[in-house]
């Protein structure tokens, strides 16, 4: 019965979405009085009904209702409670319901902040988002309904959640990632509304900025978490695989990063308007493309959901309508947005342009690498895969160039910069970076020029930003949060570069055969294998290896990697033993048992691997800080002030 409530909730939300879309997107001369309030209440209604629907699904999982097909396929009575709840988004249908719930949450927050925007524009934004939501709800309802029943053949027990997904990382990774994906619908809707209302101006850019930053911050967190999860759960010690699903999340991230910068230029200088519009459309379109890649089975991947051609076709048509429609609107309306504002080569505008070009080229490279196997298969019928080398060859030089552009940010003015001002960063910050990079060059083996270049550039970013903070805080007390946000994000970028460069080249990896009491050397540390014992988990049995690692400085710790056999599905999973540290991780994973009580063991020493994710955390934190800036809050106050003024005048 509860599952049917969920079904009804989904259907009612769909009806409200349809109504809100009609009201919101109606041609202006036909607009009814009170359209804005109507749209707002329908958005609240969508949120309420989807919440009911989602709660019903959670209820089915918590009460082990295996007559619901989705529950039977993704849960088991032995599953611990927290995983029963997270199993709700462990498969295609439920994760899409979560996607819709998050979409409704974004719309709700937007509706509550409606006073900040002109009424006509705001109604358009809600209408556009409701139309998108309608598409999502129809997709869930007609092709991937999580409430379908298995009657009369109700299984006695479920087939269990994929053990890979029984993990803290999975509980939080999809919600964060979807917050980012779906959040990009807000700048998309703002862009569409601005095109429809013919008001692509600085105010539009200022309204879009906090939403874009917020969505981008979530996307950054989601990607970083996914990477961290892959690192400790897949047991290969890698943290990025250029897998199609990872690329699907990385492409919108690149577009959103470009959008954040382009929006800044549009707001401050009134240029790049049509480019900004295009990026806003591209960001969300790439989210949808990602959904298509992940959920249609067009590309095979570790993350792939159950394959269903009907779903793929639906998403493809939806994509064609949404993206095709918005790009047509762009083609028709963006022409009036040309602004001629001059700037010199040594200006923020120019470097923002450089930043945008680099990001878009990177995006094109990732897209080529992800989609060309499909094209190749279409042409020749053979399956190829574009491997890691392709992506790395493109990415390393592009990101180094991007780092060079970031270096210049603190010393550049809008419009033009006197060369005198540029001198300081070359004279003061660059030598510091060179000295530190040089020290690294002399103390480590093996040496790589590209790593040295990355280190010097990253340190240069840090030095020049630190210098800028110092200079500015001497001049004025209380720097704006937007400034702190930007600086934090740039420092996070530098931190990630250092982490990536070092961990990619300085890691030690040993595959060894170890019998109990054997000792292996891992770099300067000594690893002793004590043996394997059997441990019982709540829904698995594990063989747990016990290793004692003694470091060169005498410190020692124990690592307990496991090989788990899950009772319900019989799946075998590797759980790595990791000693995490700010400067290095030691990572041990159990391979296969060999004869004579010995095991194949994989030992890793990974210096600075945490910096990759900590850098991403800093970037996301910076994005969040910028949203908190007073200038976005003042919007409300200013408006209430003018309204109050108008009232008192009347």
């Amino acid at each position, binding site marked *: 019965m509860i599952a049917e409530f969920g079904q009804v909730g989904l259907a009612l939300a769909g009806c409200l979405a349809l109504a809100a879309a009609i009201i919101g997107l109606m041609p202006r001369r036909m607009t009814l009085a009170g359209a804005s309030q109507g749209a707002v209440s329908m958005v609240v209604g969508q949120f309420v009904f989807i919440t009911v629907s989602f709660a019903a699904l959670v209820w089915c999982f918590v009460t082990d209702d295996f007559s619901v097909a989705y529950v039977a396929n993704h849960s088991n009575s032995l599953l611990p409670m927290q995983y029963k709840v997270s199993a709700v988004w462990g498969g295609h249908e439920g994760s899409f319901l979560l996607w819709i719930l998050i979409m409704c949450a974004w719309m709700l927050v937007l509706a509550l902040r409606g006073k900040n925007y002109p009424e006509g524009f705001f109604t358009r934004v809600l209408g556009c988002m409701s139309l998108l939501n309608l598409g999502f709800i129809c997709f869930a309802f007609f092709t991937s309904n999580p409430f379908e029943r298995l009657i009369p053949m109700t*299984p006695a027990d479920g087939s269990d959640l994929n053990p890979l997904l029984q993990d803290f990382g999975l509980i939080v990774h999809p919600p964060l990632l979807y917050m980012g994906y779906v959040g990009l619908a807000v700048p998309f809707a703002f862009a569409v509304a601005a095109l429809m209302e013919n008001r692509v101006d600085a105010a539009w850019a200022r309204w879009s900025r906090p939403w874009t930053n917020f969505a981008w911050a979530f996307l950054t967190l989601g990607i970083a978490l996914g990477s961290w999860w892959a690192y400790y759960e897949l047991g290969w010690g890698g943290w990025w695989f250029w897998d199609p699903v990872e690329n699907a999340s990385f492409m919108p991230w690149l577009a959103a990063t470009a959008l954040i910068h382009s929006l800044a230029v549009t707001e401050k200088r009134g240029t790049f308007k049509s480019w900004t519009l295009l990026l806003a459309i591209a960001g969300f379109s790439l989210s949808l493309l990602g959904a*298509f890649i992940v959920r249609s089975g*067009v590309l095979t991947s570790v993350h792939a959901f159950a*394959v269903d051609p009907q779903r793929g076709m639906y998403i*493809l048509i939806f994509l064609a309508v949404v*993206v095709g429609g918005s790009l047509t609107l*762009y*083609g028709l309306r963006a022409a009036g947005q040309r602004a001629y504002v001059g700037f010199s080569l040594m200006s923020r505008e120019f470097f923002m342009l450089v930043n945008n070009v680099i990001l878009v080229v990177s995006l094109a490279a990732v897209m080529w690498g992800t989609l060309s196997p499909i*094209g190749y298969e279409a042409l020749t019928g053979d399956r190829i895969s574009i491997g890691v080398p392709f992506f790395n060859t493109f990415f390393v030089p592009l990101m180094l160039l991007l780092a060079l552009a970031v270096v210049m940010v603190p010393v550049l003015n809008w419009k033009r910069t006197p060369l005198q001002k540029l001198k300081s960063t070359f004279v003061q910050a660059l030598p510091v970076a060179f000295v530190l990079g040089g020290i690294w060059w002399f103390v480590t083996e093996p040496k790589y020029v590209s790593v040295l270049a990355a280190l010097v550039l990253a340190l240069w970013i840090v030095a020049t930003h630190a210098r800028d903070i110092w200079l500015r805080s001497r001049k004025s007390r209380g720097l704006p949060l937007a400034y702190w946000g930007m600086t934090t994000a740039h420092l996070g970028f530098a931190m990630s570069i250092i982490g990536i460069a070092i961990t990619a080249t300085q890691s030690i990896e040993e595959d060894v055969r170890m019998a109990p009491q054997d000792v292996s050397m891992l770099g300067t540390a000594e690893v002793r294998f004590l043996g394997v014992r059997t441990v019982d988990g709540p829904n698995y049995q594990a063989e747990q290896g016990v290793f004692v690692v003694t470091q060169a400085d005498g410190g020692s710790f124990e690592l307990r990697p496991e090989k788990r056999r899950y009772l319900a599905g019989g799946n075998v999973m590797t759980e790595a033993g990791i000693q995490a540290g700010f400067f290095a991780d030691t990572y041990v994973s159990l391979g296969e048992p060999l004869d004579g009580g010995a095991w194949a063991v994989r030992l890793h020493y990974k210096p600075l691997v945490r910096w990759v994710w900590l850098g991403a955390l800093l970037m996301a934190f910076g994005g969040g800080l910028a949203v908190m800036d007073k200038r976005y809050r003042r919007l409300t106050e200013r408006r209430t002030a003018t309204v109050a003024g108008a009232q008192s005048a009347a």
Partner: protein
Amino acid sequence: MNRASLFIPLGIFCLIMFVGYVGFSLGDRKQLPSALLGKPFPQFEAPLLYNPQQKVSNTDLLGHPTLVNVWATWCPTCKAEHAELLSIAASTDVRLVGVNYKDSIPKALRWLADYGDPYDLVLVDANGALGVELGVYGAPETFLLDAEGNIVYKRVGDVNPRIWRDELAPRLAQMGVYRTPEPETEPASVGSVSMREAHSR
């Protein structure tokens, strides 16, 4: 830069969509363009579920159209398709062979006792060796073999009424082990008789 250049993004998008569409329509991916399609069933030797001493090999699958269904008790989808398999066993002359995949024998026996046994033969593939040969990546999977032992159709996922109607029934009919029911042979209910009479008048 003129107005037309603003449509460049739309053009690029159409190109991407075209590639996506072509890639996507390469085939129903559940009906995998399996490397095995049209090839003989791989060689194997597996014990019988009811009599583990007796081994069966691929020569035992020759001579008659055969439907090989890979199933397991840990697989709820297998339970969902079980009713369909029972009705196939009842309504056709195809030889239905079950491969009990990575499962425990007592559980498999209890399952067949509880839900009914549609199979003419049940093989045990306890360690998944036959599954590897067949390229099985999950249960259930179903293979249709002609009398010469060649794989003519493969289904990944459950055999549901739609798959039966659109994919299996026509092929089985073509092989001569299934007769599409004539309206007359159906147990005619009163309603349908009167309908037909009304129609002929």
